[in-house]
């Protein structure tokens, strides 16, 4: 099977082919696309490199089975995310009876479709954005400007501003939220 041909197929096509022909190569291809995400999430929850590696392999086998049995997987990535998290949480629960998960920094609004970069399009928006940026607490403003307007990475923002990485991330998140609220008050939606 030429790999190039596999690489061109979409997730959906690969899964359909896998269900029809049962050849694990199809599933391996689609799984590998998201493997860095699976591994990262496993690292986050299990906090152990070896266990995370095992989790990636075990999930591969388990999900290959489920996907084969025709479990309805319309959106592979979302499905994979849910499965990965559940798998990790189960693994943790086996280790510790009373598991508490902190929601501090992973608890955020992911689903907003709002993007700062779209805003510079017309003058009214531009004006509103400038005003709202000006009203942000200074540290948030600096972090937001560097990240969204100058397109610096977290690490670069950290170096330029001297804020610790964790602070950079929360300034950006809070700043973004405040900006959004401020713009909405002015009647502008992203």
């Amino acid at each position, binding site marked *: 099977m030429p790999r190039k041909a596999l690489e061109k197929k979409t997730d959906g096509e690969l899964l359909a082919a896998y269900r029809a022909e049962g050849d694990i190569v199809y599933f391996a*291809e689609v799984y590998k696309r998201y*493997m860095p995400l699976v591994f990262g*999430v496993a*690292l986050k929850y299990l906090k152990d*490199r070896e*266990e995370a590696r*095992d989790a990636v392999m075990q999930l591969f086998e388990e999900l290959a089975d489920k996907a084969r049995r025709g479990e309805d997987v319309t959106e592979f990535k979302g499905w*994979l995310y849910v499965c990965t998290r559940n798998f990790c949480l189960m693994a943790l629960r086996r280790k510790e009876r009373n598991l508490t998960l902190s929601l501090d920094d992973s608890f955020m609004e992911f689903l907003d479709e709002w993007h700062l970069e779209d805003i510079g399009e017309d003058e009214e928006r531009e004006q509103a954005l400038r005003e709202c940026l000006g009203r942000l607490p200074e540290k948030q403003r600096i972090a937001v400007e560097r*990240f969204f307007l100058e397109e610096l*990475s977290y690490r670069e923002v950290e170096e330029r501003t001297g804020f610790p990485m964790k602070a950079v991330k929360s300034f950006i998140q809070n700043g973004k939220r405040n900006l959004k609220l401020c713009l909405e008050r002015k009647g502008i939606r992203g």
Partner: protein
Amino acid sequence: MKRNDDIRNYLRGDRRGKAANRLEREALSDPFLHEALEGYDVLPGNDAGDLERLERMIDRKGYRGRKMWWGYIAAASLLVGVFLFLWKQEEPGEEFFRQEQLATVTSLPAEQDRQEDMVVEDSVVEKSGVVSLERVKVMQDEPVEHVVQEEPEQKQLSRAVMPRMQVMEKETRTLPVNDSGGATVTGWHHVAGRVTDSLGRPLPGVVVRAASWGTATDASGRFSLRLPDSLHSLNFAYIGMEAAERSFTPGDSLRVVLRDTDAFLGEMVVTGYGNSRKKPFVGAATRVETVREDSLGVYLTSVLKEKAGKWFADGIREFEVTFKVGKDGRVVRPRVLQAPSVEVERSVEKALLEAPVWEERFRGERLRGVLRLEEKDGQVRFSFRLR
């Protein structure tokens, strides 16, 4: 896929620039990506390396089925070949076989103690009938006594389970028969070498491979292999060692050093079920030993004895560690700074976590110090000095 490469570059690189910004921004609206990046931040280590290894493992699973299928075809054609060979052989009778053995001995005098894997290509097998008939014509002029005389030596040669098959294989390799020997193989070259671990000790039984040719190292870690001209690199694999790939030019003698993998077996947890009865306690309780600055080295030496020797041999002399001593005297969040290797980092951090409780006066403090490895009376010891 593009996304996949993005993350890999991000992990491998220094996380700067527009590409990094784009990924981080994407993570703001993608919880999966967001959590994954968090995960990579939490644990330091060779993320890109781990990913590559995982990908290889998955590939292996993905393509195993396919290989088995080819295996069946190869086995089937082998059977047909053997059948043809035996059938042809019946015609000239007993003498034919003797003469054929002679052919091997005379054409391949240096072949005897070469360690070679037995590889039989389908096409070779199928052609063999023709090849052997040609040879019968050539050899019939030779005196028969000579043939008998050579026979014991030949026995030594055929060490495989199927002596006939091996004879056949060796002949087809050396004889200038134009259309035999597989479609792609035109000539052969030698490569030999020695495989050791990082301390220079020979590794026996290392699997040495190139495409479908291969062998294993002998007791002194040596191997020698004859390969088609088209192959110029060898793979080395051994349990507990990182696999290695080396390229060579014909006639080379390779010195291959395999490094230990940092993959350990997981811990085993033993859980007990059932009731235990409380017994009255009589006697004196031993005092719980506490750790001080000067006894940490002794503790580490006792738990990491074997590893320390290896690290010392690898040239590791000292590194810094920092950790907090909790209110209960236990070590919290140990870190090896600029760890010389993943193994050192992991083993030392684990050992620190499991160390006995620290003395009263250190509790609640963050400590930082240098761990030094020294050799005394043939044993490698740790010593620890606070900063």
